[in-house]
């Protein structure tokens, strides 16, 4: 494997006696599509929050693109090229869909200490914003307030915002949770299209998605990495089968 884009070593996070992350080691190569699976309460979201910098780990190091970012703030990491989606869609409900994406693009186009001009009507930002909406199939909903979008549309919007920031590492926390069939197919196609162009860490429950898309899979149980490997290896790993997939081996 080439030099890892994300290099996580011994990441540990405790909450009052509960060890949510217990010495996690993960290496993710540049442009790898890496999935993290595990039962509820395994510490998947805690892991993502530490990688983004919203939670500070108790121990361990996180290196991104060769830099130690363990203590870097979330906004600093975002500017280095890490972006995340949240399990519960995190958008700007009072802004229209296109404005949501514009805010994401503005974040990456220099500082915002500019006090004049109509920022949300600036074509330099609006045009790429509309293109980003097209990518997720929301172009015709561009003027709708994000708060008025349907559940699945909000998820798609958040994904489009995250992509518009042109990250190097995309942390996706269950992007398809609670989505209807049609909507998840759309997101699935989008994720498939992303594969190979950006590094992805995907936390997902849907095994079909994970096994279809991932280059490698890490299985997280009680805050520990039980196994990491290619989908075909994970599928036949006996530990994983007993701990998580269930002996029926439905995957």
């Amino acid at each position, binding site marked *: 494997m080439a030099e890892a884009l994300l290099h996580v070593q011994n990441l540990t996070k405790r909450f009052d006696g509960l060890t949510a992350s217990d010495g996690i080691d993960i290496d993710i190569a540049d442009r790898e599509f890496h999935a993290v699976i595990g039962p509820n309460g395994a510490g998947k979201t805690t892991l993502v929050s530490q990688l*983004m910098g*919203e939670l500070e780990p108790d121990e361990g190091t996180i290196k991104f693109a060769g830099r130690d970012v363990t203590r870097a*703030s*979330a*906004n*600093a990491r*975002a*500017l280095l090229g890490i*972006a*995340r989606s*949240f399990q519960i869609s*995190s*958008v*700007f*409900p*009072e*802004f*229209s869909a296109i*404005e949501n994406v*514009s*805010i*994401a693009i*503005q*974040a*990456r186009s220099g500082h*915002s*200490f*500019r*006090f*004049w*001009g*109509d*920022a*949300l009507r600036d074509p330099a930002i609006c045009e790429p914003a509309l293109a980003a909406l097209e990518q997720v199939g929301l172009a015709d909903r561009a003027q709708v*307030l994000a*708060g*008025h979008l349907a559940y699945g549309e909000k998820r798609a919007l958040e994904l489009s*915002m995250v992509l518009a*920031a042109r990250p190097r590492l995309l942390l996706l926390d269950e992007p398809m949770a609670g989505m209807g069939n049609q909507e998840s197919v759309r997101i699935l196609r989008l994720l498939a299209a992303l594969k190979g162009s950006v590094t992805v860490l995907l936390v997902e429950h849907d095994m079909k998605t994970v096994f279809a898309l991932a280059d490698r899979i890490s299985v997280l149980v009680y805050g520990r990495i039980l196994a990491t490997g290619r989908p075909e290896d994970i599928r036949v790993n006996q530990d994983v089968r007993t701990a998580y997939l269930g002996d029926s081996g439905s995957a």
Partner: protein
Amino acid sequence: MLLLLLVPQISDLTGQAYYIGFFTRVVAFAIAAVSLDLILGFGGMVSFGHAAYLGVGAYALGILLRHGVTNALVHLLVAMAASALVALLIGAVSLRTKGIYFIMITLAFSQMLYYLGVSLSAYGGDDGMSLPARSDFFGVLDFASDTALYYFAFGMFVIFFWISRHLVMSRFGVVIRGTKSNERRMIALGYPTYRYQLLAFVISGAMCGAAGMLLANQALYVSPSLMQWSRSGELLVMVLLGGMGTLYGAAVGSLVLMILEKLLSHVTDHWPIILGLILVTVVRFAKRGIFGWLTQTRPAHANGKKDG
């Protein structure tokens, strides 16, 4: 708007010279309310200590006049700079907190300044101080004339309002509004939100300081009562009454509140009760305030409440 321009003439015609002074105060409070709306309606920062900057601006004027500095431009700049500095200190601490803690800490700071004013015995202490004369605008405008002061205040209002309109639409304004809407998302997108909020807080404080300088000029009197917590509450009421997050609403709210206070106090000594009922009615039936109710359309990216 046009009527406001003609206040001095109407005042002359009706022989009620008193109106000019009253409307000068209205305009000054409108500036203060707009400055509060900038951080409250657009930034979601509920400052319960905004009267502090009125006080800082007023005291800046009083102290300068006491020491023989009479130039209005110097007064204005010093009042704004001093308020900005105070806002920087208060904001730097307060903005580390959120929600109710932010409200309480801004209130606490303004109370500290209030008691600082009370203890300033060299400048009148509790009783405040009378000012020897008004600011002098390079001898061109004589603020001794109520009309000149009124137009000066009105001009300042127009300038500040115009600046604020641009500010909220700019990139900077987008960051402020986005942070109000969803700070976690802003941070995850890469915005160092604290810095932007702090600057908004400072701009708001400076603008409010200018309003304080105008109020003191009008009254020829400066006292700690300008910084009382109830005054901060009054500013919040003006913004809520008129409608948050529109700027127009803040201006309308200050006009309506002050006129109501004036009218009701003629009717009964218990006027705050009636005022309270009116406020409850407005908040209950016109969530976007009087201005929102008058226009009945959603002001672009400016509604006060989160939906869904």
